[in-house]
């Protein structure tokens, strides 16, 4: 611990020395969309002259800062889908230049063509990163026409879908709970709506989506597999606007505009499904008494005090309601609130301070005189984050602190009247997580870029509470009652993060990365993907932090001025302290849940190929993953490695979009993957009067392969200056492929002396239409 701080201190204190050695001049500013005032994240800023060629990407708030020698330069700013801005500058004293880019109309084939301007994907040392272009989402056909960030990322290499129509996902062999999902920095614990068929991210309100599959930068911590960093739009600070969409099962509306011209803007977006209302209107009697809906609201305001100080407030609230009148009700939802304050200390030092609240709660209620009960559970976090970015000529330093207080209410059962169920309250659990990190994106030479970082993660389980320690036989070996705030158990972990890129030439590079991640919040789930009944537990005296190490190697290539991008990555991952549970474990409302767990290891490896066409009338991408994912637990499968459920050998996705004319565009996507690893019976016998199956090796069998073709078309209505509208048509599973959702075994109906396997398929061919408007 002490050594770590000394190390951190000496690391940090050495920076000013590096910096002061060079007397240079700094140009800084913010890059925005000229029409809406939205800051542009990751825009490329280049400063060039005969001898110098310096470039970097804008940060999460559109800020850039370049320090170099005095002189005459061309300042070029580019961003995908926007026209390039070039201006001559004379750098003799510190300059602040804010750049506004105008959107390139889709059919103008302008895009980017200024020599080596781009090639960002080749030169950036970051690897294992995929970005979703929000404009592409408009065209990709999806189930029931609801465009969805989480479904779009499932088309990327290394990302496997949680199941048909499901927004759950697995990254490079990780489990569904090993993804850190952030919405404006707030953790979203359950990203699923309606049993997982829709995600909590309303695409209208989203500005930027980045998925880190490996080489996670040091400012991210807390999950093993991936970081999905979703950022909301800030709202148009120039003029007021409304846009929305009316779909078959959901409608959405967004309003945005300036509160104080060029100083303050707001954005509010809301969405609600109405499957239940619709079915009632059509007289579907089976749903007449039932509730089945979700809604969510995203809102954000910002206030720019001056060029150096900006305040952002953003929030999300979403709720799902499923109910059967007089019988059963189930609702769950996330709430997040983020307050952020950007302060530019000087043109090189950028600071952001965040205060974040997030909460996920779930309740299920039986409404019945004899057996009524309500079970509530929730997880709530309070976060503080302080992040600094220091821009110097060859370094981009990032360092900061993060603190989180967790509170978990595992289960509160209430019951009334003569209910057969007894009230029960499982003790709340408290924990604090602390993170300190430092990283340096270091341009060693024209060809060699490094991103090195170190993160210190600390977790403490706190009292109050009665804490049991269990032996492997599930017996209590010790029990102690802790008072409020008392430390029950502390864990420290050092997480090195390292990425490097070596540019072979402008168009080719190789990259390598290593990262260690740790995780202290674990989900216990009986289903393979996220479900509202998932149980959250923290690291404790029984549960050790999960640890993941990953190495990856990649080759990146661009051709035709970035018209084609190609990447190949290989990875190998080791996972420690993985969690599974014993046979017959009853996880719900169980104070002894930690006695039901098994601990093991995991390993995952694979190759990911990704090719993208970014220009012309035909755009899209193809991704292919060849991978293996295994787990090993004492007591399962005789202690040998077995395939994890989500181990799918082959995984292929194809997304294509084609502009037919000014008004029509068409799109298609196709997926193919090997079936999930499952356990089929190897024999059978009879006990208790029933055919019972005998199993040998865990997950040694395969479900049938899955494949699906979806098609879509978008028609833009005649545009007026004030009003734009479009129709989106899509057909999900156009070939009506019967993909496996579940397989079970049963006695044959007409010949009970035989058994048969029955496959359930979920969605056949589903057409949908959505009307979108904007004014």
């Amino acid at each position, binding site marked *: 611990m002490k050594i770590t701080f000394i190390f951190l201190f000496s690391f940090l204190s050495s920076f000013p020395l590096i910096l002061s050695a060079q007397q240079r001049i700094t140009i800084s500013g913010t890059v925005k969309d000229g029409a809406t005032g939205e800051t542009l994240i990751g825009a490329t800023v280049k400063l060039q002259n005969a001898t110098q060629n310096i470039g970097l990407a804008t940060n999460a708030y559109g800020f850039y800062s370049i320090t170099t020698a005095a002189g005459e330069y061309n300042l070029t700013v580019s961003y995908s889908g926007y026209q390039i801005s070039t201006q001559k500058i004379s750098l003799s004293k510190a300059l602040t230049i804010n750049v506004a880019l105008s959107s390139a109309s889709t059919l103008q084939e302008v895009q980017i063509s200024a020599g080596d301007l781009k090639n960002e994907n080749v030169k950036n040392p970051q690897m294992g990163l995929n970005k979703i272009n929000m404009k592409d989402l408009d065209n990709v056909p999806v189930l029931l026409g609801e465009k969805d960030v989480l479904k779009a990322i499932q088309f990327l290499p290394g990302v496997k879908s949680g*199941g048909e129509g499901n927004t759950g996902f697995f990254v490079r062999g990780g489990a569904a709970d090993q993804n850190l999902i952030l919405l404006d920095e707030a953790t979203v614990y359950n990203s699923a709506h309606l049993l997982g068929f829709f995600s909590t991210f309303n695409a209208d309100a989203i500005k930027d989506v980045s998925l880190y599959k490996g080489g996670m930068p040091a400012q991210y911590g807390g999950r093993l597999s991936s970081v999905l960093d979703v950022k909301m739009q800030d709202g148009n600070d120039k003029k007021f606007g409304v846009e929305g969409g009316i779909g078959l099962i959901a409608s959405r509306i967004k309003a945005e505009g300036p509160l104080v011209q060029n100083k303050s803007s707001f954005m509010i977006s809301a969405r609600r499904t109405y499957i239940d209302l619709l079915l009632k209107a059509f007289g579907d009697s*089976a*749903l*007449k*008494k*039932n509730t089945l809906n979700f809604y969510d609201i995203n809102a954000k305001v910002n206030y720019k005090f001056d060029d150096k100080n900006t305040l952002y407030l953003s929030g999300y609230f979403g709720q799902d309601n*499923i109910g*059967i*009148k007089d*019988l*059963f009700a189930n609702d769950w939802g996330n709430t997040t609130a983020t307050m952020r304050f950007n302060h530019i200390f000087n043109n090189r030092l950028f600071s952001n301070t965040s205060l974040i609240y997030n909460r996920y709660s779930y309740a299920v209620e*039986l409404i019945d005189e*004899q*057996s009524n009960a309500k079970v509530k559970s929730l997880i709530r976090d309070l976060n503080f984050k302080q992040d600094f970015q220091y821009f110097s000529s060859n370094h981009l330093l990032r360092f900061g602190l993060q603190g989180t207080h967790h509170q978990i209410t595992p289960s509160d059962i209430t019951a009334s009247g003569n*209910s*057969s*169920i007894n009230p029960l309250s499982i003790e709340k659990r408290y924990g604090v997580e602390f993170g300190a990190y430092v990283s340096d994106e270091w341009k060693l030479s024209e060809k060699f870029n490094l991103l090195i970082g170190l993160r210190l993660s600390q977790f403490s389980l706190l009292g109050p509470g009665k804490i049991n320690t269990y032996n492997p036989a599930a017996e209590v070996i010790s029990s102690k009652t802790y008072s409020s705030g008392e430390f029950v158990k502390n864990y420290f972990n050092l997480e090195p993060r390292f990425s490097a890129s070596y540019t072979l030439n402008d168009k080719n590079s190789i990259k390598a990365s290593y990262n260690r991640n740790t995780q202290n919040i674990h989900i216990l789930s*009986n*289903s*393979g*993907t996220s479900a509202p009944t998932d149980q959250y537990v923290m690291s404790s005296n029984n549960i050790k932090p999960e640890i993941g190490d990953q190495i990856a190697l990649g080759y990146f290539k661009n051709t035709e001025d970035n018209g084609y991008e190609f990447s190949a990555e290989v990875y190998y991952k080791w996972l420690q302290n993985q969690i599974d549970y014993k*046979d*017959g474990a*009853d996880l*719900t*409302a169980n104070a002894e849940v930690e006695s039901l767990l098994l601990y093991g290891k995991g390993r995952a490896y694979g190759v990911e190929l990704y090719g993208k066409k970014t220009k012309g009338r035909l755009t899209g991408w193809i991704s292919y993953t060849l991978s293996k994912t295994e787990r090993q637990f004492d007591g399962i499968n005789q202690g040998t490695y077995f395939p994890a*459920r989500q181990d799918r050998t082959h995984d292929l996705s194809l997304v294509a979009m084609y502009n037919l004319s000014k008004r029509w565009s068409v799109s298609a996507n196709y997926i193919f993957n090997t079936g*999930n690893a*499952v*356990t*089929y*019976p*190897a*024999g*059978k*016998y*009879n*006990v*208790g009067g029933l*055919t*019972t199956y*005998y*199993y040998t090796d865990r*997950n040694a*069998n395969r*479900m049938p392969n899955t494949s699906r073709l979806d098609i879509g078309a978008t028609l833009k209505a005649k545009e007026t200056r004030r009003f734009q509208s479009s129709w989106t048509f899509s057909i999900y599973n156009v070939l009506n492929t*019967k993909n*496996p959702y*579940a397989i*079970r075994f*049963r*006695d044959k*109906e007409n010949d009970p002396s035989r058994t*048969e*396997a029955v496959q*359930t*398929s*979920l969605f*056949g061919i*589903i057409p949908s239409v959505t009307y979108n408007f904007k004014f």
Partner: protein
Amino acid sequence: MTMLKQIKYIAILFTGSIAWSSCEKVIDVKLDNAESQLVIEGTITDQPGQQLIKISKSVPYTENNTYPPVSGAVVLVTDDNGHSWTFSETTPGFYTFPALKGETGRTYTLKATVNNVVYTASSSMPAPVAIDFLDVKVFNFGGDDQKQAQVHYKDPAGIANQYRFVMKVNGIQSKQVYAENDRLSDGNDVPSVLFFTGNNDDQDQLRTGDVVDIEMQCIDKNVFLYWYTLSQQSSNGPSGGTTPGNPPSNINNKALGYFSVHTVSKKQLTVQ
């Protein structure tokens, strides 16, 4: 427990009703065929009369549902009070003792010697809890009423109780495994719905005129774990639900099956 089971079933039935385009088909699957395993199914009840221990072998999945009996075993049951009973093979694979009544609180040990391998298991007789009465519970998901049988019993307070139910509809045993405990309902009057899903999981209610026979068993913790594990595997969640495995048996030496010492209470109901 009752509640959780009920929630699970309601959720399954409900999702079934909204997954409007879901469909089922019989498929061919490639299966590994395992070697035959020894299966012991032994019960001692609190009802005076003949007690039965069955010994058979498992068969490969692709074979008929006829299980070869295992003959020539030596089967002995003892209790913790110095008694012992030697079971004799009356028909191949069926080992019986003509007159034996399990006593509450006693622990019985089964010792079966098959081909020089000794298999042992112990189980204790819980205090009896009887069925109070049976009735029909009507569910309404918005469409037609759906009828299900409901067992009422009074759970004794202050002790852990585990139950298993066997339901026959018109003489045919329901394919569901019904196991519950009193973890969340200790000491209460418990109504427990035994969801009937038909002989082939394709029907989800009882019909007027159906004759329902229900046997309630009070079982010990290990036997409960066996049945509860099996009952979880019959669920059918996303991508297959709980990973199936062999339920933890109270018999040693990797024999399949169980040795259950339990009470029996029976009642009959005709669905109106």
